[in-house]
C-alpha cells in the first residue's frame, strides 16, 4: 500500500479523501489555492502544498504544479477526487510519466469512457441500450439544427467532456438552440477546457439510476448496485439514494442493470471505481447514458448500504492489490439517502450564495454521516462549486432513513450565507417523494404542488420576531448582553 498520497482537489471531497487516507495510516498531502489556505482540508491534512491563485485554471487544473507538489512531498500516488482533473486522460498519462500512480482508471480507459460519444459506441458494442442521439460532436449551428430536427424536439445538449450538469441544456424549440449551444459550449470550456458538445433525444420524465462498478487490474469486476439520482435541478443532482425505490418492486432490475454496467466496463478495459449512468423509462427500459470514470459525489449512499469503503478500495486497487470481494459477497442492507447541501438561495432562484459562515452547528447522532468541507468562520469562495457538505442518513428502512434525515436537517443551523437546508425538509414532507414516485421531472412538479407552502406557525413566527427584536445587525456582544438584561428582568416573573 502507498505511504504518501496527494489529494488534488478541494472542499468536502478533499476532506473525505484525507480522512480515508488517515483511516489507513497513509500520509495525506492537501493542495490549496489562495482562497483555500484556511480550508478544512488544509488543516486536517498531514502536509499541504500551495498551487496558485484562486481561479481553478491557476491552481486545481494546473497539472504541472500538482505533479511538482507530489514530487516535493514524496507522494507515490495522486487521488483526483471528482471534477477538476479527475476525468482528464492527459493528467492520468502525465502522472504515469512522472512515476506517480493516478488513483483511477488508465488514461486509455478514460479516453474510451470519458468522452460521452466514445462511451456510447462502446456501450453499443457491449450490447447495452443507449438513448438515440449524435455519435459525434456537433459542428456549427446549422449542423446542430439538422440533427435536432432528425431526433425531434425536445433535445438535450451535453458537453462531451462534462458531468454534473455543466455544459448541459434542454432545448424545446429550435429558436432557443443557438443561445443554448453558445452557453453550453462556453460553460464546458470553463469547466472542462473543451468546447465540444453533442445532441441527444430527451427521454421525458425518466428516472436517473446509476450503477457503481469496481474492478481491479487483474480483470475482476463487480457492481455495487444502484443509486437513484432522479431528483435534479438544472441537471445537477440534489438528492441521491440507495436502494432505488424502483428496486423494491423490481428486484431483478438491479441485477440486469448491474450486469450491463459490468459488461460495458469490461469492454473498456476499465479498472478502479466507476459509475454507469442510465435513464430508466416508465416501462423499466434502461438506456446507458454515460460513464463517470471517477469517484462520484454521492458515493456515501453506496458505502452506507454495502458497508464497503469505496476510497479504501480505490487505493488498494491503484496500489495493485486484488479486489477480494466477489459479486455474491455484496449485500445491500437498509436504505441511505443523501442531500447535497449547497450555498444557494432557494427563495431567489437558487442563485449561488458564497460568503462567510458566521455560525454553524452540524447535525450528528444515530444513522447520520456528514461529509462536510466547511466550519464556522470559513468564507465560502465564489470561485468554485457551491457544494458545502453532504448529509447522508442510513436507516433499516427507507422510512427510517427519511425520519433521520429530516431530524438531522432540522438540527443543521448555518448562518451567514443561504443554503438549501430548509428546501430539503419540504421535499421530505412531499407525498410523491415519500412514496418514492421519482423522475428527473420531480422538482418541476414539486414546485407546482408546493406553491402554497406551509409557513411556520404563528408562535414560531413570534419566537423569530422576539429574537429579531433583540437587535438586528447588532454585534453579538450587544446581542447577548441584551438577552441577559431581558433574562434578569424576566426570571422572577417567569411561570414555570
Amino acid at each position, binding site marked *: 500500500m502507498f505511504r504518501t498520497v496527494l489529494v488534488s482537489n478541494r472542499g468536502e471531497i478533499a476532506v473525505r479523501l484525507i480522512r480515508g487516507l488517515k483511516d489507513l495510516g497513509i500520509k495525506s498531502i492537501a493542495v490549496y489555492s489562495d482562497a483555500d489556505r484556511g480550508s478544512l482540508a488544509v488543516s486536517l491534512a498531514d502536509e499541504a502544498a500551495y498551487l496558485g491563485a484562486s481561479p481553478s485554471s491557476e491552481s486545481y487544473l494546473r497539472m504541472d504544479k500538482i505533479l511538482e507538489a507530489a514530487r516535493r512531498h514524496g507522494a507515490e500516488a495522486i487521488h483526483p477526487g471528482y471534477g477538476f482533473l479527475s476525468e482528464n486522460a492527459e493528467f492520468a498519462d502525465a502522472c504515469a510519466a512522472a512515476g506517480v500512480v493516478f488513483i483511477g482508471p488508465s488514461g486509455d480507459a478514460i479516453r474510451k469512457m470519458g468522452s460521452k460519444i466514445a462511451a456510447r459506441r462502446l456501450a453499443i458494442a457491449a450490447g447495452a441500450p443507449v438513448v438515440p442521439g449524435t455519435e459525434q460532436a456537433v459542428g456549427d449551428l446549422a449542423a446542430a439544427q439538422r440533427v435536432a430536427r432528425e431526433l425531434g424536439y425536445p433535445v438535450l445538449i451535453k458537453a462531451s467532456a462534462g458531468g454534473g450538469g455543466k455544459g448541459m441544456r434542454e432545448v424545446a424549440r429550435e429558436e432557443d438552440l443557438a443561445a443554448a449551444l453558445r452557453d453550453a459550449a462556453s460553460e464546458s470550456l470553463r469547466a472542462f477546457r473543451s468546447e465540444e458538445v453533442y445532441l441527444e433525444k430527451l427521454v421525458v420524465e425518466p428516472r436517473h439510476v446509476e450503477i457503481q462498478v469496481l474492478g481491479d487490474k487483474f480483470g475482476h469486476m463487480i457492481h455495487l448496485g444502484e443509486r437513484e439520482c432522479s431528483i435534479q435541478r438544472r441537471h445537477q443532482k440534489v438528492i441521491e439514494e440507495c436502494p432505488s425505490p424502483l428496486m423494491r418492486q423490481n428486484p431483478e432490475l438491479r441485477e440486469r442493470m448491474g450486469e450491463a454496467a459490468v459488461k460495458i466496463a469490461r469492454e473498456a478495459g476499465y479498472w478502479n471505481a466507476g459509475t454507469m449512468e442510465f435513464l430508466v423509462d416508465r416501462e423499466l427500459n434502461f438506456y446507458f447514458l454515460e460513464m463517470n470514470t471517477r469517484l462520484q459525489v454521492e458515493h456515501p449512499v453506496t458505502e452506507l448500504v454495502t458497508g464497503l469503503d469505496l476510497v479504501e478500495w480505490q487505493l488498494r486497487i491503484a496500489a495493485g492489490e486484488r479486489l477480494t470481494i466477489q459479486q455474491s459477497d455484496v449485500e445491500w442492507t437498509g436504505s441511505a439517502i443523501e442531500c447535497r447541501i449547497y450555498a444557494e438561495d432557494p427563495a431567489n432562484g437558487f*442563485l*449561488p450564495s458564497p460568503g462567510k459562515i458566521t455560525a454553524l452547528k452540524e447535525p450528528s447522532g444515530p444513522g447520520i454521516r456528514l461529509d462536510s468541507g466547511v466550519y464556522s468562520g470559513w468564507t465560502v469562495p465564489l470561485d468554485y462549486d457551491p457544494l458545502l457538505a453532504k448529509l447522508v442518513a442510513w436507516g433499516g428502512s427507507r422510512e427510517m432513513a427519511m425520519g433521520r434525515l429530516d431530524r438531522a436537517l432540522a438540527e443543521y443551523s448555518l448562518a451567514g450565507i443561504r443554503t438549501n437546508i430548509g428546501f430539503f425538509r419540504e421535499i421530505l414532507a412531499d407525498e410523491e417523494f415519500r412514496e418514492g414516485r421519482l423522475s428527473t421531472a420531480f422538482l418541476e412538479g414539486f414546485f407546482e404542488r408546493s406553491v402554497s407552502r406551509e409557513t411556520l406557525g404563528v*408562535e414560531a413566527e413570534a419566537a*423569530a420576531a*422576539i429574537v429579531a427584536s433583540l437587535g438586528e445587525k447588532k454585534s453579538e456582544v450587544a446581542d447577548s448582553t441584551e*438577552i441577559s438584561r431581558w433574562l434578569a428582568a424576566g426570571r422572577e416573573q*417567569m411561570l414555570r
Partner: protein
Amino acid sequence: MKVETRIGGRAGNLKVEAASFRYEREDGAVAEGEFSLQTLEPGCVSVLIGGRSYRVTRGAAGEMMVNGQPVAAEVFDPRSLRSRKSGADRGGRHDICAPMPGKIVRVLVEAGDAVKAGQGLVVVEAMKMQNEMKSPKAGRVVEVRTKVDAAVSPGEVLMVVE
C-alpha cells in the same frame, strides 16, 4: 417595547414586557404568553413559549432559522418605518442589478443598442454557475456600468435599460 414586524413576508407587530409578549399578524393571528430566552452559541437562541421549544438562529441578513426552517424576519421601530426600496423601476428606467456576488463573464450589448424583452444583456458567473441577465422589456440600453472580468456585489447596478 413595541416593534413592527415582517415575518415570512407578512406584516405584524410585537409587544414585549419583561417575560411576556404579544405578537399579532396582519391576518389577525395572535400568539401571546410568557417566554424564556437562553443564548446557546452566538447567534443561536433557545426560546421557550408555553413549554414549547424553538431554536432560533440568525441566518443570512434579514433571515432567521427556526428549528432549521428559514424565514425572512425583520423588525423596525414604528416611528422610523422603513420604506422598501424599489429602485428597479423609476419612470421607465430599469436598473439591471447583479443577483449574486460574482464575476462578469460576458457583456452582450453596448450602450445605445436596442433590445427586445427577454434578450440577454450580460452574463454573471459565481461558483461555476452562469446567470444570463435578461432585459425586462423592449427598449434601449442607456448605460453599461460594468465590463468583462469585473467582480460584482449583489444589487450592484450593471446596466440601465429604458
